[in-house]
Each structure stands twice: as C-alpha cells, then as structure tokens.
C-alpha cells in the first residue's frame, strides 16, 4: 500500500503521461508531414509503363498507381475478396477516363515494353502508346528508321518553337488592338446614354477609323504569320499505336513532352524529376490547374502575405503600445484587451464576410465611385482583389501581433524605461529609443505567427479575391507595378480547387499533395527568414551578463 503511494507521489506515472502526450502530438505532426512529403515528392518521378494482356484478349498500357483488395459481390449475394490494380491508362479522349481497375485474376500477362512512350499533352492529360511513324511536313519516318524517337523529339522541338512564336504573335496582336478596343469601348459607353453630342461620337468614330487604317497592315502581316505557323503545326504529326493496336494520329503541337520511362536509367529519371519540379515551380497551370506549374499561386500567396504583414505589424504594434504604455489601466482597458485576444477565436469565414461587406462593397465601391467612374459599371476596387484579401487577413491576424507585442512590452525591464525617463526623455522618446528596439524580437514573433496563420487561411480569401485562375499576376512590369485591384491565386485555395473541385480529381491527386507540400515549405521558409532576423536582434539585445 505504502509502496503504491510512494509510486504515485514520486510522479513517475506523470512523466509517462506527459511524455505520451508529447509523443502523440509529435507523432501526428510527423505523420502528416510524412504523408504530404512522401506523396508530394513522388508525384514527378517518371513511373514505368506496364502493358497488361487480359484473359479476354484486351490490352492495356499505363502506369501502376495503386494496388488494393476489394470486395466483389458474387452471384450468391456474398462478398468475395479480389485483388486489383489501378492503372493510369491515360488517353482520356479515347477511353473517356484516365484510370482503369484491373482484377488480378483477369490478367494473363504483364510486362514493361522498352519502346512504350508517354506523351504529356497540353490538354486531355497523358497519352500512352508506341510510336508508329512521324511525319514532318512531307517527310515520313516509320519504324524502319532506327532513330524514330529522335525524329519524334525533333518534331516536338519544332512544334514547341512554333508555339512560342505563336504566343509572341498573339501578344503583339493584342497590343496592336488595344488602342482601338479602348476607343470602341468608349463609343459603346456613349451609346448607352441618350443625351450625347454627336460631335463626340463622330470624333471617336473618326479616331477608330484612323486607328484601324494605321494598324491594318501590321495586323494582316501578323495574322498571316500566325496562319502559316498553324499550318506548319498541322503538318507535324506523330502516329501512335495504342494498347489495343489501333493507330492514332496525334498532332505534335498538342504534345508538351514525350519520354520512354522504361528505357530511362535512374540518373536520367532524376534529371527528368528535377526538370518537372522546376516546371512545377515556375510554370503556369494547365488543364484547369491539374497539370503544369503553380507559379502564379506561389507568387500570389507570397505577395498577399507580405502585404498583410506590412499592414498588420504597424497597426498591431501601435495598438499594443497604446494599450500598455499610454492607456490608464482599468476595467475598460481590460475589456478591450480581452476582446482583442478573443478576436483570434472568431471563425475566419466571419472575417471573410466582413471583408466582403465592408472592404469590398463599402470602401471598394466608394473608391470606384470616386476615382474609377470611367470603368463603371465594371468594378475596379469594388470586387475581390489582393488588397482586400490582405486587409481581411491583416484583421484576422491582428490579435496575434497585438498579443505578441504586448508580451514583448511586458518583458522590457522597468529599470530601462525609468532609466530613460530619468535622463530627461519624454515618454515617446523613451518608447521609440528604448522600448521599441527591445521589443523587436517580440514583434517579429508576432509577425511569424501572423504569417503562419495568414498563409494557410483559405476560407476568407475565397470571398475576398482569390480565383481559380488569375489572368495576370498582381505584380508586373506595367505601371503601377503592384496591382492591388487584381484577383490572385493562392496555394491554399489551389489545393482545395484542384483536390475537390476539378473535373478529374483522381489524376490531380499528386498535384494536391505536391501543392500542400509546397505550401508547408513556403510557410516554413517565411518563418525561417523571420526567425533568422529575430535571432539576430536577440543577439544584439541579449540581456546583461552577470
């Protein structure tokens, strides 16, 4: 009896309990990171292509994505267990879906044919098959040519080059047409109002005509170039034998990349992997975001977080300083402090609604009425945009900054404050020269927490300016460089959109994991940067040594 008492008194079980709690929490975090990292890292590794021949004679070609046991309803209404393999057969435009489940018991043979090719296409996902022939203009290369794959690559290089040129021409055409379309827009606006002077309309019409004449020559030349390039594209074709033996003609201009994974060594696969990761980081998304890169989303996330920090830090610090240094401590201040802290517990969607109602409709609407009348009825600031999203998030993260700054303020030694005052400093001089430098680490801690919270928030952004696909980045080289009114893309929303809103969720799964991994990575990176600065400051202001 006594021994049991001593056992409890000594506290060994509590060490066990607390330790178990820690291990559980850590374990869950590591598990989550592990799953995200494992699945995310795996996404770009080129998988081998397997060929399956089933007992009924049908053939399939594709990547193995999963194997599992499933329950199958037997004729006698009982369930039997079957093993099946999930094959990504691609060729969505032909088969209708990307995946096929094959029962193990149905498979007659399977092998990995060396010559199997994976075509990554701009649209409709991957295409698997064997190259049968390549035609470049009037030349045709067939399986008799030993370097058929090289010819195919040559053809691909040509179409990719053409694609670049086409994009350039289209951009030029757009630039060329812009002044004209602006005049036309102005005209259309005048037509809506009835009381207009005819002279203005005539003037605009004349201007439009002049512009049209001016650009006509260049326009014709550019469109001719474009047609010529398109024609060239249509003459570069690869004939592909798909699994069931039929030959399909694929215009090379639809292909983005082709490779033969079964032939690739681990080293070349690694190179391929790096190339894909790089593309993921810097390219625009394709195929309703399920393919390609996420660069606009990375960019949008970072810019939004930076804007948010720029807003929230000064306001939060100012509020905390007033609360702690100037305000007369009492019931009211206690209530205010409590409210600010509780603000952190308000569901983020509520902030989103507030952002929509206040920032966008009231403030944004007023700005439009005052400064962007020429654009109305289409809104400029009266609709979601990166500015409003950042402000909404700034509001959301304000309590975090206030609380962290207050903690910093409380840690400033009373002696230092009194010392400054005793030297004849005013209160503001004391705050600016002694208090503020000492609380910089605290402020940065607040910023770190705000960034972590803000970068991961999705719900309020969905109604304040995030879009699935933004036409332009919020920051570019055209004046005024930072376009606060623009809608933007965000990694968190990207994950939601690709994972749960895309038409082809299964094929997009690797993208979801990869993007999640990237989001974690960005948050960690932003934090590390802030922590680096904080530690530098801490070293600078480290407390006395005795």
């Amino acid at each position, binding site marked *: 009896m006594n021994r049991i008492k001593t056992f409890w008194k000594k506290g060994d079980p509590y060490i066990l309990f607390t330790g178990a709690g820690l291990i559980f929490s850590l374990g869950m975090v590591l598990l989550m990171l592990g799953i995200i990292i494992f699945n995310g890292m795996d996404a770009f590794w080129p998988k081998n292509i397997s060929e399956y021949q089933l007992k009924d004679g049908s053939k399939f070609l594709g990547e193995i994505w999963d194997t599992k046991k499933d329950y199958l309803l037997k004729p006698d209404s009982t369930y039997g267990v079957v093993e099946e393999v999930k094959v990504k057969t691609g060729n969505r435009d032909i088969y209708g879906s990307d995946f096929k489940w094959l029962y193990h018991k149905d498979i007659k043979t399977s092998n990995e044919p060396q010559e199997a090719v994976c075509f990554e296409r701009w649209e409709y996902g991957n295409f698997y098959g064997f190259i049968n022939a390549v035609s470049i203009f009037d030349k045709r290369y067939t399986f008799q040519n030993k370097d058929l794959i090289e010819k195919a690559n040559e053809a691909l290089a040509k179409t990719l080059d053409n694609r670049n040129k086409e994009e350039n021409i289209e951009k030029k055409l757009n630039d060329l047409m812009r002044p004209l379309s602006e005049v036309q827009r102005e005209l259309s606006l005048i037509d809506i109002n009835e009381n207009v002077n005819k002279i203005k309309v005539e003037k605009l019409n004349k201007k439009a005509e002049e512009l049209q004449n001016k650009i006509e020559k260049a326009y014709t030349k550019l469109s001719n170039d474009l047609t010529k390039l398109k024609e060239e594209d249509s003459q570069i074709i690869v004939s592909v034998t798909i699994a069931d033996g039929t030959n399909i003609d694929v215009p090379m201009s639809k292909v983005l990349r082709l490779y033969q994974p079964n032939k690739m060594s681990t080293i070349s696969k690694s190179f391929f992997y790096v190339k894909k990761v790089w593309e993921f980081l810097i390219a625009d998304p394709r195929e309703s975001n399920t393919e390609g890169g996420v660069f606009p989303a990375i960019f949008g996330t970072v810019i939004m977080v930076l804007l948010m920090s720029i807003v929230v830090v000064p306001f939060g610090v100012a509020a905390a300083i007033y609360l702690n240094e100037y305000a007369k401590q009492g019931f009211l201040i206690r209530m205010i402090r409590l409210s600010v802290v509780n603000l952190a517990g308000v569901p983020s969607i509520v902030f989103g609604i507030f952002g929509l109602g206040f920032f966008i409709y009231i403030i944004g609407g007023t700005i439009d009425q005052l400064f962007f009348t020429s654009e109305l009825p289409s809104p400029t600031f009266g609709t979601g945009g990166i500015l409003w999203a950042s402000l909404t998030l700034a509001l959301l993260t304000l309590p975090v900054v206030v609380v962290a700054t207050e903690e910093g303020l409380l840690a400033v030694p009373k002696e230092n404050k*009194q010392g400054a005052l005793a030297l004849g400093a005013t209160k503001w001089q004391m705050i600016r020269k002694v208090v503020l430098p000492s609380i910089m680490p605290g402020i940065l801690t607040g910023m770190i927490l705000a960034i972590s919270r803000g970068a991961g928030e999705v719900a309020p952004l969905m109604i304040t300016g995030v879009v699935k696909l933004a036409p332009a980045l919020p920051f570019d080289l055209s004046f005024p460089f930072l376009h606060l009114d623009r809608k933007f893309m965000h990694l968190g929303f990207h994950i939601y959109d690709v994972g749960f809103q895309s038409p082809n969720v299964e094929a997009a799964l690797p993208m979801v994991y990869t993007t999640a991994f990237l989001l974690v990575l960005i948050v960690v990176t932003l934090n590390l940067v802030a922590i680096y600065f904080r530690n530098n400051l801490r070293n600078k202001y480290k407390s006395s040594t005795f």
Partner: protein
Amino acid sequence: MKINIEQALGKNVKVTDKKLVTVIRTNKVNFYYTRDKKTLDNINITISEKKVTAFIGPSGCGKSTLLRCFNRMNDLIPGIKMTGKIEIEGNDIYSPDVKLEDLRKKIGMVFQKSNPFPMTIWENVAFGPKVNGITSKSDLDEIVEFSLTQGDLWKEVKDRLNSSAMDLSGGQQQRLCIARALANKPDIILMDEPASSLDPISTNKIEETISELKNNYTIVIVTHNMQQAARVSEYTAFMMTGNIIEFNETSALFTNPKEKLTEDYITGRFG
C-alpha cells in the same frame, strides 16, 4: 530592550552649518502609495551642495521613496499622493509649471539594478544629451569621452565604444549608468543602492568613482550597507518607518549617535 518609537518621532534634525549651500530642501513631506499607507511622514531635510549624503535604514523605511521624490520618479506610479514641498535650488519642483524633462535633466539617477539600454556604449552615454537636443556628432563625442572619464570607465571601453553595452560586466554596466547620468551635466546625482548587486571589487570601484565625483556634484545615495555609507558619505540620515530619526555628519552619526534607535541600528541590534 524596548524601542521608544513615539519618542523618536517628530525629532527630525536639521543640519545648520552656515558655510554650506543648501541644494535640496524638503518641507513637511508626506507620501502615500495608497490612501491608507503612509510611506513618508513629515520629512524635513536639507541637503548641501557638493557633498555626499547617504540615506540608511531598514527595508521599507522609505529611503528610496524619498530619493525618488527628488526627481519625481514616483509620478509614474498610479494612485500615489504627496503633500508638502520639495525645493531644489530654491524652486518648488512640484509646482505645475515645472517641466519634468528639464528637472530630470538636472538631476541624474543611478538605479539599484544596472540598466544599460540595448544599444552601443556610445549610444548609451549619448542618450541623455541627444534627447535633450544635442545633435552634433563632435559635441556628443566630447560629452561621451568626458562622461566616461568621470565615470571611471573611459580607459576600459575607449576601444569598443560601438560594441553593445550588454557585453560589459555588471560593475562596468553600473559605471556606464553613472557616466550616462553625468552626460546630462546634472547638478545632483541620485543613487539608489548603486552597488547592492555587485561583487566587492566592483563595489569598491563604484565607491572610488563616487569619491571622485563629490567634488563636482551633489550626491544623494541610498544604501543598505552601513559601511558603505560610512566610507563614502559626509552626511548620513538614518530613516525608519517613514521618519528621519537622525541626520548628522557621518562621522558623528556613526561614532556618537544621539538617538537610541540609531545606535541600535548601527550596532546591528535590529534591521
């Protein structure tokens, strides 16, 4: 032995030496932290120019509170109340037209815990002159050197004025704080147990600094340490429960105390 406090009360002693110039004069000063907690009770004391005056007494006797009344540091505490009059160089420092910043510029203060600001050594010393409007770098350099020399620290730090003050040792930090107070060219320096958190060697160094400073400044020092008071001060006030029990020349107070309470305290019978 029973201590007759009643008898001791109200016998605040004035030093009336004609040759001395009075710098600080208090008149019936009462001080309350809260309404019913009287910390200073009818304090009347005069402090003379260019002398070191020490306040000694047991903890909670009000010696620090009295010291902080002289540069109005107590104003920072909410809920305090003070009555009576404190004159410094003939001016009532609690009159409404006194600018706090000007008053505190004239009266330097050194705290119990060394409190260098998280800046470089140079910036620490230049802090006071800077907030009081001196901007020229060469003027500031001159002040910094002068103050550090007076604070007996110049030799040790002249090569690393731009390193953090936090890297100095405890004793050096305290001397830096003294130098920082000197940089404002004050008339009076208040020291609130300046050596109580220092080792004996550092304490010794601080005491040497004080003895060098007393030729040019009026110094008021609060100390727990009676030997220290005996070593550095010329006048000593013994305080207890908010009253000045005895105020006299240090040598007289320690060798021939007039009050029983003083004798008990300095012989270590209580406190």
